[in-house]
C-alpha cells in the first residue's frame, strides 16, 4: 500500500479489498508470443463494478482481455473467472460476455438475426425475448432489420454489445467499445455500462479516451509495457505519487497576497502567477488542502476557485507512462 512512482515499484495498489470475492483474477500471469513478452507477471483482482483498462498502444491490454476470454493461454501464472480458468473452457461464456475490438461481425446478418443467434448459442430459454431486450438496451430496435454491413461503425459496435449482453452475463469484457461511436451513442453506452456496474456486474473495458474512462470507471488498471503500472482509484493513485508536487490552480480576490501567504507554508514548494490565476505546487497534499481555507480567511482573501490541475486521469496516466 505504499508504492509510489512506477519506476520505483511496479504496482501501486489502492483498491480496498473487495467485500465480495474477486470475480476476475490474474495471479502472476505472463504471456509471450515467440520472444515478445506481451504481459509480464501481472496480478490483479476485479470485483463488481466498472474497471477501465488503460495503457499505450501495444502495452498488453488486448492480451489481458484475450487471456480472460480464453483465446490465449497464460505462458505462466493463472487466470480465473469465477474460479474457473477460461483457457479451453468455453462454458465460462455462460456468465461472461465479450465485445471484441475488431469490426468483423457477421455482416450479412441483420442485427436482430445476429443477436438472436447469440441468444440461441447461449441456449437461453426464450431467445427471442432475450434478443429483443438486448437490442432495446443498446437502442437498436429501429435499425435491427437492416443487414449489419449497412451500419455505421458505431451501430456495429452496439450490435456487438447487444450480442454480448444477450445472456445478461456476470462479467462483461469490452475492447475499445466506444470506437466509432458518435457523442450521443457514447453517452448512452456509458450510461448502460455504468448501470450494469451498479447492478453488480463486473465490467472491464479498455479505452484510449481517458476522459471517458475517468467518467465511467470506478477503478482503473494501468498497463505499461506489459506490466501493471498501477491499479485502483486514479485519485488515490495520484496521491500516492508523493514525490511529485501536486499542482493546483487558485483564483482569489488577491492572488499576489495569496502567493505571499502560501509561500510561507512548508507544504508549498512553489507558486507562480499566471494569466489564469495562481499556480501552486504543493509537496504535502494533506497539509496544503487542510490549511488553504483557513489561510485565506486569516489573510482576508476571498477564495474563488481551487482546481487540482494534475489530478485528472490524463495527468496521472502521463506520469505513469513516464511522459
Amino acid at each position: 500500500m505504499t508504492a509510489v512512482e512506477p519506476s520505483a515499484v511496479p504496482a501501486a495498489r489502492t483498491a480496498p479489498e473487495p467485500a465480495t470475492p474477486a470475480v476476475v483474477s490474474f495471479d502472476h500471469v505472463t504471456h509471450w508470443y515467440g520472444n515478445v513478452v506481451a504481459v509480464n507477471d501481472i496480478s490483479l483482482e476485479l470485483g463488481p463494478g466498472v474497471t477501465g483498462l488503460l495503457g499505450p498502444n501495444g502495452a498488453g491490454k488486448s492480451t489481458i482481455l484475450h487471456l480472460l476470454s480464453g483465446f490465449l493461454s497464460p505462458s505462466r501464472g493463472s487466470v480465473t473467472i469465477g474460479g474457473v480458468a477460461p483457457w479451453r473452457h468455453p462454458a465460462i461464456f455462460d456468465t461472461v460476455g465479450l465485445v471484441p475490438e475488431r469490426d468483423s461481425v457477421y455482416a450479412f446478418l441483420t442485427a436482430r438475426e445476429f443477436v438472436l443467434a447469440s441468444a440461441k448459442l447461449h441456449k437461453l430459454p426464450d431467445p427471442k425475448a432475450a434478443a429483443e431486450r438486448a437490442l432495446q438496451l443498446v437502442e437498436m430496435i429501429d435499425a435491427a432489420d437492416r443487414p449489419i454491413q449497412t451500419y455505421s461503425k458505431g451501430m456495429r459496435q452496439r450490435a456487438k454489445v447487444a450480442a454480448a449482453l444477450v445472456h445478461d452475463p456476470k462479467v462483461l469484457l469490452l475492447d475499445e467499445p466506444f470506437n466509432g461511436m458518435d457523442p450521443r451513442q457514447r453517452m448512452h453506452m456509458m450510461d448502460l455500462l455504468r448501470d450494469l456496474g451498479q447492478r453488480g456486474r463486473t465490467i472491464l473495458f479498455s479505452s484510449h479516451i481517458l476522459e471517458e474512462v475517468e467518467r465511467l470507471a470506478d477503478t482503473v488498471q494501468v498497463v505499461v509495457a506489459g506490466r501493471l503500472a498501477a491499479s485502483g482509484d486514479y485519485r488515490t493513485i495520484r496521491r500516492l505519487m508523493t514525490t511529485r508536487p501536486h499542482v493546483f490552480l487558485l483564483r482569489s480576490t488577491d492572488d499576489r497576497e495569496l502567493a505571499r501567504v502560501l509561500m510561507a507554508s512548508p507544504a508549498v514548494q512553489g507558486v507562480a502567477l499566471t494569466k489564469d490565476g495562481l499556480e501552486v505546487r504543493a509537496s504535502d497534499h494533506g497539509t496544503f488542502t487542510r490549511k488553504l481555507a483557513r489561510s485565506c480567511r486569516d489573510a482576508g482573501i476571498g477564495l474563488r476557485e481551487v482546481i487540482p490541475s494534475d489530478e485528472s486521469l490524463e495527468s496521472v496516466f502521463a506520469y505513469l507512462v513516464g511522459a
Partner: protein
Amino acid sequence: MSVIEQPIIEAKSLTMRYPGGVTALSDLELSVQPGITGLVGANGAGKSTLIKILLGLITPSSGQVRVLGLDAQEQGPEIRARVGYMPEHDCLPADVSATEFVTHLGRMSGLPPTAAKEQAAEALRHVGLHEERYRQIGTFSTGMKQRVKLAQALVGNPGLLLLDEPTNGLDPSGRDAMLALIRRIGSEFGIAVVVASHLLSEIERICDHLVAIDGGKLLRAASLDSMTQALPWLAIEVDEGSEPLRARLEGAGLTVSLQGRALLVRLDGDPVFDTVRDTIADLDLPLTRLEHRRHHVEELFERRELDEPTEAKL
C-alpha cells in the same frame, strides 16, 4: 487586419438527397470562420456527405456552397488544390517511404517536381517525421501513419485543412501529440482547420468554434467559449467530512446538492464564496476542489425533446 474576412466555408440551403430516397443534408445553412472549427454530428448526420460536397466530389441536389470563395460545384479541382484533406480511413501504401508518398501526392495536386519534394520535406518536418521520412510507411505505428496523412494534407500551401477523425486509433500520448500539432497548425501557420470528431473533449480542447449537425441540419454553430460558459453553481470537493460540510452550509442558508463526490452550492452572489471558505476553515476540512460548474458541449447531444429549435439558447 480589420477587414471583415469572408467565411472559409459558406453553405446556403444545401440539400443532398441520394437516389433511393435517403436525405443526407436538408437545407443546411453553414458558415465557417477562420480558426479551428470542430465539426460534430451523430453517425449518419451527413458529415461525410458534407465533406464530399465541400471537396466538390459530389454535386448537391440543391443549394450553394463556397469554399475559400470558390464555388464547390463549378470549381472542384481548384478547391481540391487549395484544401488539404486528411481522410479518416487507413489508406496508405505500406511499401513506400513517407517522403515518396507525400511527394507523389504533391505532384498529383499539380506541384512541379522540385516544389513537391521541398514541400513534402517541410510538411514531414512539421509533423515530426523528419527522421523517419525515408522509412517505409508499413513499418509505422498508428500515430506515425496519422501524421503522414496530416503531412500530405499540408502540402501545396492549403488555405483550409479538412481533418476527418484525426485521432482515430491513437493512444493517449499519440492523441496529445496530434491535438497539439493541429492547434499549432491552426495558430502558427494561420491555416483554417475543420476537424470532424466524435470526441467532444477533443473539440473543447483545441477548437475555437463548433459546428454541430444533426439529421442533415445545423444543430448549433457557436464559439467554444460561448458553449462552455459558467453556471451559477459552485462544485466543492473535500477529502473528508462532506456530510457535516453540507449540513453547515445548508444551515447557513445555502442551496446544496450532492453530485458524485462534489457538493454543488448555488452561487447567488459573492458572499457565498466567503461562507464556503469560512465553513471549511471552521470544520478544518481538506479542500481539494472549488470550481464553477460550466456548460459542456456535450449538452448539445443530451436527450432532447423533438422539435427543439436549432439555435439553442443559454
